[in-house]
């Protein structure tokens, strides 16, 4: 619970220069910057555009820094309007990231992503592979046009299981259906990592609990300070997503802090 142990002083925003923009789907782009950040998958940054606002985004990569952003409102649209050479100020890394199983233990991990929640899982998948683990990925979205990052997982030799709610691509339905199958097929329960809408996370948590699989959930909440002061990111009975999370080992809404 000691923040300094986790990620040190959060520091001031620093300008990062945009190097490359890659369109991921109709509403999501990835932004690659000119610098690295010593961060773990699951940690986030507060991104500042002077004069506009400052908003939280997960790191989709750290060397170099990569953000994968859905254009949903004023700020994210302004980020989408940035061109290579432009600057975005980032403060972080913030929060506690995912924890991988011990290096060399060569475990089987299942990563479950919904919407732009898939972004930090890409970062996680790279680290997991580098640490010798086997990675399976489930990606869900509303429609096929909203699916994200499938190709990049393919390039890593991972064939993601795709699901869409409207059945326009992959399996029709939600990610938990695939997850249930994967858990049932496994000899021993794999470690599950999930990021996406909170409804999805709650469902993943429930499925894992029943299967006895350890789970790590990257939660989201409305953030202001990002450093554990203002209370605006509280979920459940007293968890701060920015300080205690965003990654939790259980559904924070159902399990109050001890």
């Amino acid at each position, binding site marked *: 619970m000691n*923040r*300094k142990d986790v990620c040190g*002083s959060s520091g*001031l925003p*620093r*300008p990062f220069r945009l190097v490359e923009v890659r369109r991921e789907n109709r509403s999501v782009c990835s932004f690659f910057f000119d610098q690295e950040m010593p961060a773990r998958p699951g940690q986030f940054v507060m991104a500042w555009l*002077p004069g506009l606002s400052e908003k939280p985004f997960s790191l989709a990569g750290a060397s170099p820094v990569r953000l994968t952003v859905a254009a949903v409102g004023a700020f994210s649209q302004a980020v989408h309007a940035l061109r290579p050479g432009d600057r975005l100020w980032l403060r972080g890394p913030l929060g506690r990231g995912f924890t991988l199983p011990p290096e060399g233990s060569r475990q089987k991990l299942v990563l479950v992503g919904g919407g732009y929640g898939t972004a930090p899982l890409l970062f996680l998948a790279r680290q997991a592979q580098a640490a010798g683990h086997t990675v399976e990925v489930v990606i869900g979205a509303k429609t096929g046009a909203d699916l994200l990052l499938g190709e990049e997982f393919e390039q890593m030799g991972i064939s993601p299981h795709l699901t869409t709610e409207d059945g326009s691509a992959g399996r029709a339905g939600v990610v938990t259906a695939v997850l249930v199958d994967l858990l049932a097929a496994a000899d021993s329960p794999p470690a599950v990592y999930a990021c996406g809408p909170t409804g999805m996370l709650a469902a993943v948590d429930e499925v894992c609990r029943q299967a006895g699989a350890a789970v790590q959930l990257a939660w989201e909440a409305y953030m202001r300070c990002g*450093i*554990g002061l203002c209370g605006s990111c509280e979920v459940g009975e007293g968890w701060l997503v920015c300080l205690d999370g965003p990654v939790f080992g259980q559904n924070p809404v159902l399990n109050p802090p001890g």
Partner: protein
Amino acid sequence: MPDPLLACRFLDFNLPSPLVLASGIIGTSPALMARAARAGAGMVTAKSCSLRPREGHPNPTALDWGGGLINAIGLTNPGAAAEVEVLRATRRLLQPLGVPLIASIFAGTVEEFRQVARIIQQAGPDLLEVNISCPNVSDEFGTPFAALPDSAAAVTGAVRQEVTCPVAVKLAPNVPNIARIAAAVVEAGADAITAVNTMPGMVIDAAAGRPVLSNRVGGISGPALKPIALRCVYEIRRAVAVPIIGVGGVSTGRDAAEMLMAGATVVGVGSAVCYRGVSAFEEIGRELVALMKQYGYPSVEAIRGVCHR
């Protein structure tokens, strides 16, 4: 439960620990305040509330600039009526822990302070803290009441008349002579003093060529505030006899000891939650106990005010 060595008296309360959750830090919900108490806070202060709900300032609202924090949250709160419910629920959670609840109020006029006090009084807080020193809303409200002895005393007297619980008045560090303000509010009926609120400051990003906070000006807290707060508490202790909640830059047990030595009766902790998590209370308490044992202080009482001897 905190170490028994930390048990101490404050006004008529027997506290499990002299560490107090400062106003505005995670004091937004019953669950969060109860969490601070379970983590070892001996009292908890709710976020300051005003008559009507306030959204606060847009982001960026709080930053760690290296030497401490700066914030201009802008007194985000649900308004006094809704706050009563928050406080009631909080009291229910705190009672079994033996941890008193401090409500905090804020207003733009003496009359409005009266009104807010009257409403909050319904929640039955153990202590009412009167925040006359928030630096982050001066664009809206002008110079804080904490700026002058007369205005500080006027608010104190008005609130004092409205409520039956003890009243603490929270002072600002950016005054020429804080002891005079302290004397004035005690004269006007304050039962305790909370010192200090944040120090107005500004963090500028040279690359952007502008202040980082959307409100431009913000309040400095954390390590950079500590020597300022220690001096304020020291000067107040020389001037008045009421209990002091000493707040500002306390992040370690050693800091807490220094604050008590300067003359604080109990010690507020705010920014340390950002640096050390909610378990800051547990850790600071443990460090304070270790220091008391090392230097041979048998009780919190014994450390208080040693700098004045």
